């Protein structure tokens, strides 16, 4: 897992969702340089997004665990249309659906790619730092 802060993500804080008690551990984890998912003590399923119960078995037995978070590209697009000014500097940029090895699928920007990606490519988390308190999850190819 790497944490990269060479690209400038000033202002990206405004793109963050409202963080609640339920989701705080995920974002705290990223700010501390690690990817965390909920894990069910009853059935062992990892899940994202966070809930007070397990989507798979319904048990109210969720706790947060640190994960490697690597995965494969399930699908991706290359965005050319400017929808938000903050992404202008990265145009065109890739958005991927990553099938995490732990189970959940994540939606993630893939920024600063050296060459095009393909479905099935192995990818790893790359946590992007916005400021001292905030960071967000992106992915990069394992071999980059």
């Amino acid at each position: 897992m790497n944490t990269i802060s060479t690209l400038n993500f000033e202002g990206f804080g405004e793109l963050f969702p409202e963080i609640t008690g339920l989701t705080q551990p995920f974002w705290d984890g990223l700010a501390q340089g690690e990817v965390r998912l909920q894990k069910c003590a009853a059935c062992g399923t990892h899940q994202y997004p966070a809930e007070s119960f397990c989507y798979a078995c319904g048990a109210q037995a969720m706790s947060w665990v640190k994960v490697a978070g690597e995965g494969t590209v399930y699908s991706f697009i290359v965005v050319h249309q400017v929808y938000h000014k903050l992404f202008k500097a990265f145009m065109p940029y890739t958005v991927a659906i990553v099938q995490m090895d732990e189970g959940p699928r994540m939606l993630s920007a893939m920024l600063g790619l050296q060459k095009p990606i393909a479905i099935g490519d192995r990818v790893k988390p790359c946590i992007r730092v916005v400021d001292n308190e905030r960071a967000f999850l992106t992915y990069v190819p394992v071999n980059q």
Partner: protein
Amino acid sequence: MKNKRQRYCIVGVGNTAYGRTPGLSQTALNVLAIRAALEDAGLTTKDLHGVLTKAPTSTFPRLWAPQIAEALRVQPNIVGTLDQAGATNIGLIQYAISCIELGQGEVVAIAYGDNPRTGTRENYARARGGDGAVAGLFGTPSSYALAARRRMHEYGSTKTQLAHVAMTHRHHASLNPNAVYQTPITIDDYMNARWVAEPFGLLDCCPVSDGGAAYIVTTEARAKELKKAPIYLRGIGQSHPSWEFFRRPDLAASGAAESGRLCFASAGMSTADVDFCEIYDCFTIVPIITLEEYGFVPRGKGGAFYQDGHTRLGGKLPCNTSGGLLSETGMPGTQLVCEAVRQLRGECGVRQVKNPTVGLVSQQGGILTTHATMLLSVEGGQLQ
């Protein structure tokens, strides 16, 4: 459950101009469409027992059907707005016939009207869900493009095949004087259009359009007293994959397989009975997925079916004979019901399918999140 049901019909259809309708509120677009549909049926607002609506995508107001009823100056027994996005257009018919079957109304108007082109279109470019913005996922085309990429990977659909969806529907729009985009497009036009979100270029995406459309549902007994020949509701079904698109087990599947199965079973028909289709073509990949899931063609063959010209007027299975969302108007699907009824009545002039008996309407919403299917026919019959 096998009691003898009444037979249900669509007896009136109506719409406003499409594209840009400055000066017309969301309310006006609904009211004008409903009044046009009533006129088409030979009915008046005094005949209405129900007013059902699909909420305007751009603002999603609350208590919307009661507002439209008030603007029509009626106090109906039945109002409602169903939250199934594009599938609502058919879902509301299921609600309407349920109410009629209970004997609590006989004439129900179903409408959609919105002005995202001249009003606000922020909803069409918003971020997807909680983490969508920070992931850079904005706008409906981006989400459908993720589904399209997966579909192309799994089944080998090509950009050339997507081009033929856009070209076919535009060809049909060129024969439709109310279509927003009537100028035919070539494969070069398609390939040279600017990228939006690869694999989608501009001509893979339906435009954002103003407009309103409506239809009137009633019983066969009432229909026979009215102005035009009734068009019978012969089959109907829904299915909702429902999960957020990128988390569902199969991203590139829609609800068409299951909603189609229910619809064909309720009609006692098969794909061989269908003369034409009106498919919710918000993006070029969708008709390909839909035709395959209904079983008109084997999985992976929908794109070639388009490329080989079978969906053109005069082909085996004309699709989106008015131009669809891609070219007639980007409105979310109500207009397709109007087109199916007009085709079955033989009112479509130069774009008329030759002597059709059965037409299929496919509607879906969200990101392949909801789905509904309907079979309409000139021949009477009850839902089974």
